[in-house]
């Protein structure tokens, strides 16, 4: 069974497919909603130059992402965490844009 993360099929030519343990299925909607909320929170924090919030949020996301099977989320969160430690706004913003796109297009297959 698949969990599709967008309501329309428009303009999504290459969706990344992530295979997730079937028993995790009940947790996935909340997991995805939380990642989207955190992406927004980090965008707001970086706009306010609040790098400590960006670091904390990305640190939590790094630990959670790959544990659910979303290795790319952990990779992007790790990049954001490192950039937050050095206050590198451009890297954080670029990675947050990628993370936002990923969360919109990723398709989950439970198996």
């Amino acid at each position: 069974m698949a969990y599709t993360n967008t309501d329309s099929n428009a303009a999504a030519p290459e969706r990344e497919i992530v295979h997730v343990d079937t028993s995790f299925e009940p947790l996935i909607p909340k997991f995805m909603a939380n990642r989207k909320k955190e992406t927004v929170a980090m965008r707001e924090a970086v706009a306010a130059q609040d790098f400590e919030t960006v670091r904390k949020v990305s640190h939590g996301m790094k630990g959670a992402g790959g544990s659910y099977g979303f290795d790319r989320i952990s990779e992007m969160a790790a990049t954001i965490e490192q950039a937050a430690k050095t206050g590198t706004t451009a890297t954080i913003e670029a990675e947050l844009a990628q993370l936002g796109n990923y969360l919109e297009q990723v398709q989950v297959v439970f198996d």
Partner: protein
Amino acid sequence: MNEPNVQDKPTLFLVEDEDDTADLVKLIMEEEGYQVIRAADGRQALKLIDSSPPPSLVLLDMQLPFADGVKLLKHIRQTPSPWKKVPVVMLTADSCARDVRESLTLGAKDYILKPFKREALVARLRQFRTQDSEELAS
């Protein structure tokens, strides 16, 4: 179907501030037959350590609000038996050698890096399933 009595289940005391990670560990370990009790920060963990019967196993995140994993580990080791004998496994998203080494020196039995794979988490914690009951009884 007869559900096993909750009292007969081994208990896992999970200290983890990230909700989705906590939910995932809870789901996996309940499938492994554990009853999972969670504290969401260091302050809540200290209260539970001081007021609850000892669990079979503790899984302790390193970075926590109010009191970090190393502080909690020290507190557990200073709490009278049988709490002080409970096996503690550290959970960390940073492979910071110093923190890991310190926790092992303080008596943590093992550590697990986040993100983890389900199979790895279960395998690492399963080793304490028999060991813990033997140690607590001694």
